[in-house]
């Protein structure tokens, strides 16, 4: 399984990421999930979320999750980009792509990855009013 991880303070360039997708004739399904910062946190309007990471551990934990995906599903590639620092409301904070021969495994692995990320990867968000 090909894997790519970017923890970055730069904006997520979705078009560039899509253009860089490796082509593979065995690949039938591509799933992208983009998490966008909402303009409210609970009932309060926010301007941005400030993302903090324990970066070395975050990289390691993402690696553990990618290993587990490779064990559990026939995923061809996973690419994940997570913003750090302030991200304005309306901008993407998370971009995940999985490619696979068939769509069932891509959907299953993507949902598992995002759920587990929110459980174990040490990243926190702080609202900016």
């Amino acid at each position, binding site marked *: 399984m090909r894997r790519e991880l970017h923890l970055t303070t730069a904006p997520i360039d979705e078009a560039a990421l899509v253009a860089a997708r490796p082509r593979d004739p065995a690949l039938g399904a591509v799933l992208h999930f983009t*998490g966008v910062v909402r303009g409210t946190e609970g009932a309060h309007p926010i301007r941005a979320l400030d*993302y*903090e*990471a*324990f970066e*070395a*551990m*975050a*990289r*390691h*934990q993402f690696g553990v999750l990618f290993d587990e995906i490779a064990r559990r599903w026939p995923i061809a590639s996973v690419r994940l980009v*997570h913003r750090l620092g302030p991200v304005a409301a309306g901008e993407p*904070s*998370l971009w995940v792509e999985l490619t696979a021969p068939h769509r069932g495994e891509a959907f299953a692995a993507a949902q598992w990855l*995002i759920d587990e*990320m*929110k*459980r*174990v*990867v*040490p*990243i*926190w*968000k*702080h609202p900016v009013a």
Partner: protein
Amino acid sequence: MTVTVHFYSYYKELTGCADTTATVSAPATLRELVRELQVRFPRLAALENTMLLAVGVEYQPRDYILREGDAVALFPPVQGG
């Protein structure tokens, strides 16, 4: 035995501190280190149930036995995405 301690997210505000060191008499577990830190930083005491603990880049249970020079991290539930 001395270990380094790192706080993340709002634990930094609760303790007024990002990084510190702690000395515990060996053999000591993570549980004992946390107890000692709760004495120094009383506002951590209420958070025991949801506190996450790592040594290096791995999560560890409360009964993990500390080693000289371990880098311990204490933080609240994570919220990526």
